[in-house]
């Protein structure tokens, strides 16, 4: 049995590119799934520790 946590699917890059051509007032209708994918990946995902959320260098 695989106990590895499931990662939220990433937003489709082509959908992201296409969304730039959609006016804001139509985004929620035309890209509802993409909004949810981004929200899950970017917002919910951040509560999981991301190793390099803020990478501090020491040169």
């Amino acid at each position, binding site marked *: 049995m695989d106990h590895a946590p499931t990662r939220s699917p990433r937003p489709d890059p082509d959908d992201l590119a296409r969304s730039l051509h959609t006016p804001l007032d139509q985004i929620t209708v035309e890209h509802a799934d993409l909004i949810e994918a981004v929200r899950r990946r970017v917002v919910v995902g951040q509560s999981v520790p991301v190793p390099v959320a803020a990478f*501090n260098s020491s040169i």
Partner: protein
Amino acid sequence: MLKVHSRCDLSCDHCYVYQHADQTWRGRPVRMPPATVRAAARRIAEHAREHQLPDVHVVLHGGEPLLLGAAGLREVLAELRATITPWTRLDLRMQTNGVLLDEELCQVLVDHDVRVGVSFDGDRAANDRHRVFAHGGSSHEQVRRALALLRRPAYRSSYAGILCTVDVRNDPDRVYEALLAESPPRVDLLLPHATWDHPPQRPGPGATPYADWLGRIHRRWVDDGQPGSIRLFEALRPGGGGTEAFGLAPADVLVVEADGTWEQVDSLKTAYHGAAGTGFDVFDHSVDEAAGHPGVAVRQDGVQGLCATCRACPVVDRCGGGLYAHRWRTGSGFDNPSVYCADLFRLIDSVDAYPGPAQAPPSEWSTASPLDDLLDDLATGHGSPQTVRRLADDQLAITRMLLAACREMSDSAAAWETLADLELTAPEAVRAVLEHPFVRPWLVHRLDPAARSDVGAAADPLPALAVAAAVRAGVPVTVDVPVRADAITVPTLGSLLLPGLGERAEVTVLPGGFRVRGGSADRTVLLDAGEPSAGWRPVRNVPAGRLLIEDGDPYRDCYGQPVAARLDDPAVQALGRTLVEAWRVVCRDVPAHAASLDGGLRVVVPLAPDPARPLRSATARHAFGAVAVTPHPDPETVAVLLVHEWQHAKLGAVLDRYDLVTPGQGTRITVPWRPDPRPPEGVLQGVYAHLAVTQVWRSRAATDNGDASAHAARFLAWTREGADALLASRSLTAAGERFVGQLRHALEETRVGSG
């Protein structure tokens, strides 16, 4: 594919355009007239608009496209960019023999973001077997000079790779070594065009000489750790996705000839005279009409479009029946296996039998050439400004999605409507606001369910964003804006601190400023006044640049370490001078890194001073376009910090879209630059930053007698060890392995190329 020039300055005897069955070039104009270029560009733009295509790939082809000259080429490229880019992302390519390439032409290509494939068959003997001038003279030196030009940092972004036509009489080892010596981002190996009517040469007793020859190169390539991309081998792997020559993907290439006629893929010229014709042209027919031609339509059917022999073959999903043109036989047409069928079958067997220790598993990434291109470009260490703009576009798209998600939580319909209206009437104003690096952290904080209920819950960002966009657009609107700690932040512009405002304020945008009324307070802020209005703390610019010093936006506090409070004017001026000088230093050291910074770095955040750690810098994953640094007076030092942190910003943007590291493995890797074992993503970030810093120190070492060489050697060793540890860890996805492999190659090139 646009045939912008129908003649060539070489006279290669294996050329399918002039030397094979089709001779239609004889009746076509020498160069594509401007009106034809314009009509073709309009057809492509029309198609992209109607189908909402995210990308369109246009290849300038010939004949020899460089025969247009710099001015002619510039005209064509400008027309394509101006007509098509309003509707889609335009990926411009060129296939050339390279003979005429000089610095002026390279600059035209870089200026218009064109990536160039150069036809080159390997070592001198191999290349000159076919690729000669009409008088029989060698083209080898001219082509090598062209490849050397494309390797220069200034032009590297236009170097797409090498196209090598196979001749089994050549020594495969020498060809392989000659190709690799040119450090191409990608190599493609092309089987010479042939049909059942005119089969390929098969010298010697072997039944599959092409498989044997290519198999030898494949083995060398695998044994060498796959130093760079060889498209043919990658396409033939299970799940490799294929190319025009292999696989079952629908055909997606149309050709515009110099006279404006639509044609099918031009390799069909090898089959018979007129084989590629459609009867359509760009003046009277759309892309859809041309794509509806039966010869194109049959190639949309996948395995069902193949002959019975292919449909029954166990490797049909790999070779896809081979190149369409290679199936031709008089009588049965294209309803045959490829004339290279036996070779392809054996080659696939060879590829499977010798995967090598580093072969990546099949992956979705290996099919996505735009991703490959983007990663390959970034793996040079810097990435072109155009690639950085693509990353910025991704970030903008993500921010717009987050904005839309926030709309559901907003009680200000007016703010949303203002933003939506302004995006139609003043798109640059809205874009400038949404691209501000600290808008996304604000939106994320607002949406984060973990933060929503605590005392630090974010205020609704939409009203302030609407005000910022309206001020930038000069459009009068009135919006209710939440007040936090007696302050209103207007992203990209500044913050107003006004005691007595209460919890909400009415903000009215006026010409040149805005008026704020709330609680007992009423203040008009004029942005262009000599002295800032009382309580107004404007964001300050670095002189003579687009860079902002952001020390007021509360959401800049996203670096995991304290940010500086607002600097006084002398401190800002000093930091600005240092940044300007640091920018010049980067330009002096590695111009390509300066261009990359120019492409996307917009904001610098001062970090709080800490006597124990006076020199620090940071990047935040949610704040693309910004880096944080401790104000430091030495531009040489700050230059390194900027380059280092910008690497993290770019890679963070890539990781937003693509998985380069296999998630959930829990792997830890020992690295030379830190005592604690690091997760793979941390190592990847470190390697990418250190590659850039290596390039900076190597450049300095060329003119510096001090300790630059020692710094360069240390970062080189760190980068090499980190990259090798990553590759050995088996924690990377296929895309990640490719990226680190390319990066490793760039590192060795840095080592060799900079003294």
